[in-house]
């Protein structure tokens, strides 16, 4: 039987989703239009976050991006109100 709990990939996807919703105004999953749901929106938001932190703008949840997302921080978003 699969080990309970998410696979690393699913876990990372959740970390990215959660972080971008909180700090980069990615619309929460249940509130996204078809366009917003497209992976390109997530890629754009990821690049926006990577640009803010001076990371390589890969648009992918690479190691250094995931590391940055797990650092303790302020709850105020990095962009927008």
């Amino acid at each position: 039987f699969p080990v309970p709990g998410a696979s690393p990939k699913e876990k990372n996807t959740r970390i990215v989703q959660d972080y971008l919703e909180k700090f980069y105004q990615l619309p929460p999953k249940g509130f996204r239009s078809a366009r917003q749901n497209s992976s390109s929106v997530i890629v754009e938001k990821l690049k926006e976050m990577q640009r803010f932190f001076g990371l390589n703008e890969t648009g992918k949840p690479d190691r250094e991006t995931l590391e940055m997302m797990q650092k303790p921080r302020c709850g105020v978003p990095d962009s927008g109100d």
Partner: protein
Amino acid sequence: FMLTPGNPKWKQTNLTYRIIKYTTQLSETDVEAAIKEAFQVWSDVSTLTFTKISQGEADIEITFVQGDHGDNSPFDGPNGILAHAFQPGQGIGGDAHFDAEETWTTTSSNYNLFLVAAHEFGHSLGLAHSTDPGALMYPNYAFHDPSTYNLPQDDINGIQTIYGPSNNPVQPTGPTTPTACDPRLTFDAIATLRGEILFFKDKYFWRRHPQLGMVELNFISLFWPSLPDGIQAAYEEADKDLVFLFKGCQYWALRGYDIEQGYPRVILDYGFPSSVQAIDAAVYYRRKTYFFVKDQIWRYDNQRQSMEPGYPKSIASLFPGIGSKIDAVFQQNHVFLFFSGQIYYTFDLGAHRVTRVRRSNRWLNC
């Protein structure tokens, strides 16, 4: 720095604050002291004043709450989100909320309340997050010794953009974050560490990865909270898996993340005369340690644990072509790399001569 969208600001500069709810982890006295000092970070560099009230509604209301606390921005338990604050305005405007489930401290242990509060009050005054990794308004938590904390220039520029300069006859200034590819960049000290290379500058160091060549900027205090800023010399004694750091007459021994017991010690231990007050650079090679002081060099025999007779000598007599004052040096394979200003010299220990001269910041991938 960045201002909050819409550039909200307080019309009045004499603001009031009130601590509505305390954390149980610190005494009320400690909380009030941390909050007071956090406001002082901003009042020192602007015309803003902050007065604590205990009754009625304050401009900035401070509280420790957990989880969902009714402002549509729930906290997430230990770590993760530490706190948040609202932009200037009526009601919840200006208020600062701290996650009661965090461990709040007045020390270098996570998380120091003074530092987080000073950051949140930046939001309460109209600042957004800064992309400058050295700024107080950078989103991620980074420890700095509160007793020597100096508001970075980026944050001073931000708050003075909103509220104008301070009334001080001489405008206060703060540290600026070194940028890797600034052509004027010089290093304070360089040492290898278990295959990595550490480039020290002010309160920062860059870590260069041995294989990938990746370089990342960190605060010294992130790894070694009790170390001072402005390390002046450093070397790795790989045989013992130790790195020695020097500042003034003191030196520390690091084993990875840990500072060895009984440090700092004084450089007299090595047999320097009391006339030597500081070391410019140091490097260890084949059980000898080379110390560079102005235009002179001392050599320490690590086996006999004493300074070698016949020293100091002039640097040029041992390393022809390396004349002026050295900022930093490290050894790689059979060469010493001497850094002086924006230039470094590769000295081949076999050929006994300089074989290459390049710009220092090439080591930071510039």
